């Protein structure tokens, strides 16, 4: 209890902005993450309804992916405005994986529109489809690797040794290690799970297509559990701080309990074909995992050396930023609701209007 009250009394402007940053990352994972997962299912499309699967995925992603993608930019902008020291530390040490992620983002976005708007010739379209799907698969792995290497504390350590150690020790080994890679695969599995669950809802009343994605969602749930176990196992050595936060902290058990409840609910709901409930539970599960990671790192942005307070910009910047974010949210939230409402259940309706 005492640690909880200490936590609340330590909340100031920097912590609030950091919280908003995690919120934006959360939105990116829930919306953009599912777009990546969709790419994986495009790659793995199979069976008699292979083309229908790909069609549904493309139709669900098309109107919203650019908007979903902006969340990542918001995270980056908040980071360099409010926590410039953290931004530069990450940008220096993680130059290579960030560059790889960027190349993935570029290939994925362009291949997607080239497929939708380019030649209608089947072979060309398929080639763009493969490029889109492969980039969608690789990019979330790299994103997970980045998060994993930050959590492990190796980024901060490497940052302190710039100029005093070999190239690979600073720029490669913090992220090319078992734990970050396990987190990367965990992230891919989570996104795939999320996408498949969303697609069961998107499929509307095409029962066969819905069941295709139900089966995929259940398979992805297994992969999530597997990679979670691997990451947890590896973290005992690689990221002791995180593991301490995740299993040891005073809030941890509560977060864990909620995560477990949502995970089980999602699977049961899928099993019982209550797809809307499954979607809600899957979103809750991923949200809780993300916040579990964020809370376990607290008060560090780059554990174990760069704390939120240390990295934070002067308070005048933070105040203005908060005002700007408030004003922006007033524009953003109604617009986003309008977008989602306009295209809700689009795949099902498109079928209606074409028949």
């Amino acid at each position, binding site marked *: 209890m005492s640690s909880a009250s200490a936590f609340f009394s330590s909340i100031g402007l920097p912590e609030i902005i950091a919280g908003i940053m995690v919120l934006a990352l959360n939105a990116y994972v829930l919306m953009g993450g599912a777009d990546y997962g969709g790419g994986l299912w495009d790659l793995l499309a199979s069976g008699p309804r292979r083309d229908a699967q790909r069609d549904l995925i493309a139709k669900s992603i098309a*109107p919203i992916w650019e908007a979903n993608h902006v969340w990542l930019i918001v995270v980056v902008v908040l980071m360099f405005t409010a926590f410039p020291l953290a931004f530069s530390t990450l940008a220096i040490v993680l130059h290579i994986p960030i560059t790889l992620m960027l190349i993935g983002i570029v290939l994925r976005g362009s291949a997607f529109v080239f497929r939708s708007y380019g030649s209608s010739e089947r072979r060309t379209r398929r080639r763009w489809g493969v490029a889109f799907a492969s980039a969608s698969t690789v990019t979330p792995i790299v994103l997970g690797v980045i998060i994993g290497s930050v959590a492990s504390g190796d980024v901060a350590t490497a940052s302190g040794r710039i100029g005093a150690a070999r190239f690979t020790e600073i720029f490669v080994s913090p992220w090319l290690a078992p734990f970050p890679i396990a987190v990367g695969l965990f992230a891919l599995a989570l996104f795939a799970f999320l996408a498949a669950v969303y697609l069961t809802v998107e499929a509307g009343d095409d029962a066969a297509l819905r069941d295709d994605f139900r089966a995929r969602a259940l398979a992805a749930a297994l992969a999530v559990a597997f990679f979670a176990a691997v990451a947890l196992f590896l973290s005992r050595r690689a990221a002791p701080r995180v593991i301490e936060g995740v299993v040891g902290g005073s809030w941890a058990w509560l977060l864990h309990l909620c995560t477990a409840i949502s995970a089980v609910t999602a699977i049961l709901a899928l099993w019982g074909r209550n797809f809307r409930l499954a979607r809600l539970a899957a979103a809750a599960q991923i949200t809780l995992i993300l916040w579990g990671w964020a809370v376990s790192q607290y008060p560090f942005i780059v554990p174990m050396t760069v704390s939120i307070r240390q990295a934070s910009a002067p308070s005048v910047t933070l105040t203005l930023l908060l005002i700007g974010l408030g004003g922006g949210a007033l524009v953003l939230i109604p617009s986003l609701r309008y977008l989602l409402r*306009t295209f809700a259940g689009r795949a099902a309706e498109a079928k209606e209007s074409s028949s």
Partner: protein
Amino acid sequence: MSDLLAARTQMALSLGFHIVFAEIGIAMPLLMVLAEWRWRRTGDEVFLRLAKRWAKGSAILFAVGAVSGTVLSFELGLLWPHFMQFAGPIIGLPFSLEGFAFFTEAIFLGVYLYGWNRISPRAHLTAGLLVAMSGAASAIFVVMVNAWMNTPTGVTMSGGQIASIDPIAGMLNPSSFQQSLHMLLAAYAATGLAVAGIHAAILLRKPDSRFHRRALTLALMMGTPAAILQPISGDVSARTVAIWQPTKLAALEGQFATERGAPLRIGGWPDVDAQRTRFALEVPRGLSLLAFHDIDAEVKGLAAFPRENWPPLPPVHVGFQLMVGLGTAMALVSLWAAVVMARTGDVMRHRWLLRALAIVTPFGFIATEAGWTVTEVGRQPWVVQGILRTADAVTPMPGLIVPMLAFAALYIGLSAIVVRLIMTMVRETM
């Protein structure tokens, strides 16, 4: 190639690539809205076809603009971590506001492109208008950042450390207005005349196509006013540079000696060793007149500044000449089109005008690249004028030539594909 040079090249390539898509992203929505509005007003189906065609082409360009912009936001840190650590708190505010502009743009673009049959006509037109407005807003915000790098206000230094900051003053720095205006006009002029040029070229072969006639008229409605105003706005920019960045002014004019009644040099090549600009056509007292609106004003030459603070001269001087030359040509052709339009109400029968329009098709984009070269290279060796040197801002990560080459290959590949796709689309309308 040194790491610093590799980093600068990568930054320049990324920005030079992005800016083309950004300009189109600012201006095309306006054209689409114009076409759709004409369709609603006149019921002429050709306008609807036009709006849909343009929307289809733009969708590709928007996506490439979005992904290349994402690369840029990360590159600021990947290549210039010390710059961002220093400048983030001061210029993060316009970047954050830009983030919201991106949101509205991306959201209503989705609504616009995919919502033709889902929402009311009025809502659809409004969505298009919102895309056009947020594109312009994002350009203004990001150019404010660049303006701050040229004329950094809102920061006081003491002993190489930041003593205090004022982000609002940073945002409203002395170049913000001029540069944003010049950039917006550039976007409308470059895109408008490029679209006009493409349709003019087709009309030369198929003079009776109603589709291309309508397209040409709309594109001229957007492009010509901007192209005519652009030299005036450029003059305002130049005068700001004269006051705040005298080294840049001297470099872009090829002015080595400090003199009263300095001449305006047209063309020429700055010979750094001999400290004079050769082969230029000199207009007596022209520079003093343009830069300070006084034919006897004193213009500081490069010799007045320490050699290590000189920017690389040839790209800056030549870039400036190129921009002004192309800008003058665009303005003249636009004036011509405006006069023909006012006198006869029909540009289509003037084959020479159509030819001229076809020739200026790429001019705006080339002028843009040249203009950014002037601005950015002309600021060297500073990344933040007078405060932070580019060499001190670069990342300690070695081997930067590798990512530079990777991005260069990526951009070349993407450009080739985009050009091919757009050409196929244009051919489909013929």
